[in-house]
């Protein structure tokens, strides 16, 4: 429709009805058409080009006629022919897909087509649709080639670029028309380029129309599991976010200090996140793809700011993964989007950068779908196991092995989880007493197992809670953390005070026999109103009842533990994630900053002591006594000495070595680590902090127990 404007006009009275082929045949018309005519044509074109009319030309012919009918009678038919051509094309780009869609619904299938068949049909259709478009474009191109004066053709070739070029085309032709100048040749070339663009644009339009018209049906087609996969991925990324995966875990070491870079990261990745989320908004493949590419671009752009020299796949892929993890799970349907593009994007157009971005996304998703903490930190866990003193009875390594076992579906606890549709990323630390860990005598080992079983249940419950409430939990976690530490601390003070008051009196502190006890004590406030603590209070006064007391208390403990899961999931999640964190952080082979060996070892010792039934009481004291000596600090409170008397009487009952007691004259303790109290947002919590946090938590729990908080 393009090239022939000026020359053909006189020969074409057929007006809007002119077919493409017709005009094409005429394109061969003598090039010697009067030049002044060409000029007039241009003048006529001017208003049309400048006005916004250049978009849909449907109603144009009429207006044209009205405007120019009087003077430029002859040019009208020609103009409208072109417009008709454009219309035809535009129409074509609509009717083709429409027909295709019709055929889709009309066709009779024995079974509804599944997504792969649909995708195939679409791909076939794209190829088919490309043919008429291609024909049409080549028609235009050949016409263009024969066209002596490129200017008119140029101005009319492609509807989209028309406007930008219009001013040029208006001025130049008048000057250059006499001869084929270099400029004209260049313009011709440009025109050809424009034709190519137009072809592309048309093909895109066809694709877009086809996809948008059935978007609701093919997006997450019912024969697919896209939505389920997305759901899984969301819970997985949420879990990874809770655990606090860092760039480092993904294999990127960004040189800047952790604190700085973290805040920066979240800023500079926000654009990429936005782009990923926006993929939802588009209802056609190209649109989604463009957002994906924009996300990549955003990643690269921000990367260049941080690491000026490099933006290779070594960084881009991990950051894409990290972006996916840190993107709020709501509203992200990345898998559905990816698959939609893969299925319905014309395969001939998936190449180059787009193909690379798609592959990158696919790889990132595949990584996230298959990763679990054990493999992400596989080396790390091994590192811990190696570091932990082999001879000692260290519950932590046991838990870690348990955890890595739970990854396999055969592990009892995780199997229940695996049955559910979302794979838990935060794998539970299944407390399996490792047989290889023979340092315990049989009986303590049994004891150990029995001790750990209840918390395991609680953790199981908590794990469920993690998955279901991962999002909200994220927000709660910091508060809980904060509160629980504040409570601990406050409680401690209170006890201290009361002891100071009743020194030498009957207030006998309860020594927690187990970690359970300690934990129970921590959770006690929740029970205060139940009146269930009455017996405990009584018990603490009568040391002769000690054993029976502890029995009853144990039962009570079970109940409490049951409650923990329901009442305070985030609290448990904290513990849980801290075990995970410990596993990872303790080892981070390349992290010199983490003082984990000490921390881990310290907590192991106190742990171990608290577990041994024979000497747990002196052990407790020893544990308390030692910790301060290692870290000299703090408020050595006078009341501690007062506990000595009641304690030793108890010790006599339980017939443990008095030497141990003697060795622990001074029980000092430190306040909770202030840094953690100040933390407002769990995001501020580093992975490396978790071991420390856990240890401190336990330490405080022990101290609480020591002072008989009940």
């Amino acid at each position, binding site marked *: 429709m393009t090239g022939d404007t000026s020359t053909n006009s006189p020969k074409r009275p057929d007006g809007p009805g002119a077919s493409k082929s017709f005009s094409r045949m005429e394109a061969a018309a003598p090039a010697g058409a009067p030049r002044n005519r060409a000029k007039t044509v241009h003048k006529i074109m001017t208003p049309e080009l400048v006005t916004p009319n250049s978009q849909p030309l449907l109603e144009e012919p009429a207006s044209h006629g009205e405007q120019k009918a009087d003077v430029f009678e002859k040019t009208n038919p020609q103009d409208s022919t072109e417009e008709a051509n454009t219309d035809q094309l535009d129409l074509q780009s609509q009717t083709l897909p429409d027909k295709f869609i019709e055929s889709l619904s009309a066709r009779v299938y024995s079974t509804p087509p599944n997504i792969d068949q649909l995708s195939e049909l679409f791909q076939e259709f794209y190829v088919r649709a490309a043919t008429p478009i291609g024909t049409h474009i080549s028609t235009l191109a050949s016409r263009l080639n024969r066209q002596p004066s490129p200017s008119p053709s140029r101005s009319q070739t492609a509807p989209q670029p028309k406007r930008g070029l219009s001013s040029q085309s208006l001025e130049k032709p008048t000057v250059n028309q006499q001869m084929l100048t270099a400029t004209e040749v260049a313009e011709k070339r440009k025109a050809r380029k424009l034709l190519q663009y137009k072809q592309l644009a048309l093909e895109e339009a066809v694709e877009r129309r086809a996809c948008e018209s059935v978007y609701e049906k093919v997006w997450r087609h019912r024969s697919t599991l896209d939505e389920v996969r997305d759901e899984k991925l969301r819970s997985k990324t949420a879990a990874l976010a809770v655990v606090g995966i860092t760039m480092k875990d993904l*294999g990127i070491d960004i040189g800047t200090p952790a604190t700085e870079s973290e805040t920066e990261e979240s800023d500079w990745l926000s654009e990429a996140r936005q782009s990923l989320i926006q993929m939802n908004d588009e209802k056609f493949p190209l649109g989604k793809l463009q957002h994906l590419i924009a996300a990549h671009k955003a990643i690269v752009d921000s990367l260049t700011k941080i690491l000026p020299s490099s933006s*290779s796949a*070594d960084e881009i892929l991990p950051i894409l993964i990290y972006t996916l993890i840190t993107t709020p799970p709501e509203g992200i349907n990345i898998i559905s989007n990816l698959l939609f593009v893969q299925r319905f994007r014309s395969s001939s157009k998936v190449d180059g*950068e787009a193909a*690379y971005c798609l*592959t990158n996304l696919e*790889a990132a998703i595949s*990584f996230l779908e298959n990763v679990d903490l054990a493999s992400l930190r596989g080396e790390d866990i091994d590192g811990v196991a190696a570091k932990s003193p082999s001879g000692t009875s260290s519950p932590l390594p046991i838990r870690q092995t348990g955890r890595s076992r739970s990854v396999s579906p055969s592990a009892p606890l995780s199997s229940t989880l695996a049955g559910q549709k979302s794979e838990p990323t935060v794998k539970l630390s299944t407390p399996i007493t490792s047989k290889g860990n023979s340092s315990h005598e049989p009986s303590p080992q049994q004891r150990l197992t029995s001790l750990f079983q209840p918390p395991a249940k609680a953790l199981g419950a908590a794990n469920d809670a993690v998955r279901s409430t991962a999002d909200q939990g994220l927000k709660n976690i910091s508060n809980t953390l904060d509160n629980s530490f504040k409570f601990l601390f406050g409680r401690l003070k209170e006890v201290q005070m009361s002891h100071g008051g009743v020194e030498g009196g009957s207030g006998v502190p309860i020594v927690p026999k187990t970690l359970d006890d300690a934990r129970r004590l921590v959770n006690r406030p929740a029970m205060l109103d139940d009146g269930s603590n009455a017996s405990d209070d009584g018990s603490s006064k009568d040391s002769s009842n000690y054993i029976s007391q502890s029995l009853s208390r144990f039962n009570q403990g079970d109940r409490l533990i049951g409650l923990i899961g329901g009442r305070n999931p985030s609290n448990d999640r904290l513990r849980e994630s801290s075990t995970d964190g410990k596993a990872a952080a303790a080892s981070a082979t390349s992290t010199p900053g983490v003082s984990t060996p000490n921390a881990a070892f310290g907590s192991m010792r106190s742990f171990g002591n608290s577990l041994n039934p024979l000497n747990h009481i002196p052990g407790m004291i020893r544990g308390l006594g030692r910790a301060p000596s290692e870290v000299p600090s703090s408020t050595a409170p006078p009341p501690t000495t007062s506990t000595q008397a009641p304690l030793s009487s108890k010790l006599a009952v339980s017939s443990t070595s008095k030497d141990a007691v003697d060795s622990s004259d001074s029980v000092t303790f430190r306040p909770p680590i202030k840094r953690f109290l100040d933390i407002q947002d769990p995001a501020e919590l580093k992975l490396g902090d978790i071991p420390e946090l856990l240890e401190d938590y336990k330490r405080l729990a022990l101290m609480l127990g020591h002072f008989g908080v009940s």
Partner: protein
Amino acid sequence: MKFVKDDFKDFKESTIGAAFLTQTVFLPEKNTTVKFEIWDTAGQERYRSLAPMYYRNASCAVVVYDISSADSYIKAKEWVDELRLKSSNEKIQIALVGNKLDLVTPDKDGHALAQRQVKTEEVNGSGKDGEKKGYVTEYNEPSDIVPMIFYETSAKSGENVHPLFTKIAESLPLDQVGPRGQRNHLDLRPETPSPSTSGCAC
């Protein structure tokens, strides 16, 4: 990836940086233009399982190691084996490239920045008639195999990079050439110590 980005002016960078590049090579004797699409893959071990996604449909793969790191050479050989075994394209053209030639080349004063750890002979054999076999020469012995290409390059100075890509372009069968005489590639190149790979997607 200084390799391409800073020092390779004729590599055209895409909007997404050095991870995806295009490079066109003209072969005068065949009157053909080969367009490489160079895909970078993440070289870290933990992402290794994802690599097949990148090299599927690739017509060639460039495995790059650091000649100042014996470790990277070992890993590069693993990559070669993997490509040989797992690539969907049985005729995939593999190029093994020892990079950082500039580091081990002595300057005027005879000082090199790094010690070469992988000898050329070790890889490519020595002697005029290949008396002493190297990894590549041995690898290329079976007649039914697509011979591996070997080059030592410096990404920094650009030394041998163009010959490398020309050689790859020449070695690719012409029937893969598309209608416009263009074709794309993926290739893989290394992060510093670990070999990464890149391939050419057609």
